């Protein structure tokens, strides 16, 4: 057994998710990602079953593992109790651990998620915060969100929220002590380490690509990974 496969087997989600696949294709037939992207969960399991290190390394460096939406529809339907959606979570973890994620366009997007959702968790105690969901980055949210965004405090108060205030309720200010606990948990359980790896590998890649990357969100590399599709990722290719 090779080093990468061994590392994958250290992840309980991988152990839980990989049984003997008979290639029936049920997972692929019902997969929302397979309909949209050049992606087949059946092929993913097929490659992993080979234990072939070269193929697994190529997979970890590919766009393929970043196409899944983790809806877990495949888990419900597999007649052999495989869970391609769980395997994806293990593959993505290892790809980030090894720094392979920066070798694919979709993988490189992890830095933008880390600097938004990751930052908001530590800053606000929420995965999302309305003050950060700007209409400019979210035109699909439409004119009602644009109006709400510009009247957040008034709208939140009208709807009974406790926006940015102490005590219970919708969008309350999470107490400082609770935010400190989140940070300690992140330090203790590997999230801080993962964040640092995403940053370090991304900075190296940005330099390699000749793109500017500072510590914020308004720079060439972040804009590129957030907005660009430089190749055809679609199912029809």
């Amino acid at each position: 057994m090779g080093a990468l496969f061994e590392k994958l087997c250290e992840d309980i989600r991988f152990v839980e998710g990989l049984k003997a696949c008979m290639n029936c294709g049920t997972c692929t037939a019902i997969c929302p990602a397979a309909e949209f992207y050049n992606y087949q969960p059946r092929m993913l399991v097929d490659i992993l079953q080979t234990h072939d290190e070269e193929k697994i390394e190529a997979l970890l460096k590919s766009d393929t593992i970043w196409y899944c939406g983790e809806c877990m529809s495949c888990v419900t339907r597999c007649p052999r109790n495989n869970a391609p959606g769980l395997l994806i979570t293990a593959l993505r973890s290892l790809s980030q651990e090894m720094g392979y994620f920066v070798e694919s366009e979709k993988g490189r997007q992890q830095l933008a998620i880390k600097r938004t959702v990751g930052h908001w968790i530590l800053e606000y105690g929420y995965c999302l915060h309305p003050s950060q969901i700007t209409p400019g980055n979210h035109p699909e949210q439409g004119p009602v969100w644009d109006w709400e965004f510009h009247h957040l405090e008034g709208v939140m108060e009208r709807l009974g929220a406790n926006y940015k205030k102490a005590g219970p309720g919708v969008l309350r200010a999470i107490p400082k002590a609770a935010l400190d606990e989140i940070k300690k948990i992140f330090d203790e359980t590997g999230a801080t380490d993962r964040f640092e790896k995403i940053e370090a590998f991304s900075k190296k890649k940005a330099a390699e690509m000749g793109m500017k990357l500072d510590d914020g969100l308004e720079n060439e590399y972040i804009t590129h990974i957030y907005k660009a599709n430089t190749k055809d990722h679609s199912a029809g290719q």
Partner: protein
Amino acid sequence: MKIEGKRRIWDDYQKEIAGDNYFYVRSCVRQNFFPGAEKTFLRYMAELGKNVFENPSHTTCTGIGYHSDIVPFKTAMTMVARQFALMTEAGYENFVTSCITSFGLYTEILDTWSHFPEQEEQTREHLKKATGREFVKPKNLAHASDVTYKFRKDITHRGKYRLVNKDTGLPLKVVEHIGCHYSRMFPSKGVGGAEYPYVLVGMVEEWGGEVIDYPERRHCCGFGFRQYLIQANRGYSIAASKKKFESMKSYKPDMILTNCPGCPMFLDRWQYAISEMEGITYGDAGQGIPVMTYEELAGLILGYDPWDLGFQVHQVPVEPLLDKIGIPYDPEKKFLDINGNAMGKPKSPSYLKFY
């Protein structure tokens, strides 16, 4: 629709839902986009005489971070353990979550701990070292839609309205959409299982409506975590929602009912985006199909003011549905603040009829 077989399946998946004394944790997405829904849940639970406790120190479970793969599983397990510790410290045993992603994550973690007890032990050590806290696992884990389902008949008895067209007397046609992480990984943890979940169907039938059984009923709304969070990936998200709209449109649904935080937002906003991109609307005469959460619907049944429920922050107007049921509303008050002062109004979309 022949439902005998489905009823047998539903009988196999009747989960236990606690009857009172809940420790409540909120949803990141819902607090942002549907703040009135959680407020409404607490309102009708209080009116039903139920005790629901919230500790302001509870936080995100990190579910969106976990499913966009920036947060490791060990971290997510410890964050969830911290929520359980807050419940334990407050003296509660019944854990209720507002979020489906959270509900799925809590379910996954409890299942993991049952198969890999060493993972639970390690999580306890992590939590103790990071926060000094300890926890007892919940005696009962439920989603807030499970709890609402449990009390659906009580809501009927207190209610003022039914899901019936006031002019024709016919049941309104309802698309029900279940969040993927409600029961896809662990069918026995959801009312009705994964293929024929009954949690929303039960509410619709109880409140007088008729559920539409359309081909793409079980297709994901298209959130896909990273597939929406990153702008370059949003084609995935809107394509999934469009597939559902195209599949349901010939059944002429009066509304879409959801139990997941993301689904109502996407099914609402993508109708707007599709209308702007292609000039297509899915309701009658340029209208959209109103989308709402089960709390908002329960609030309508109970006769709460639509603007107290938060329908003014939906992009697809609900007024056509209110008119069909005969629920009164004051259009002049739609966009006012809590003191009745004007806050301006959103612009009208290019195609989607706006009120």
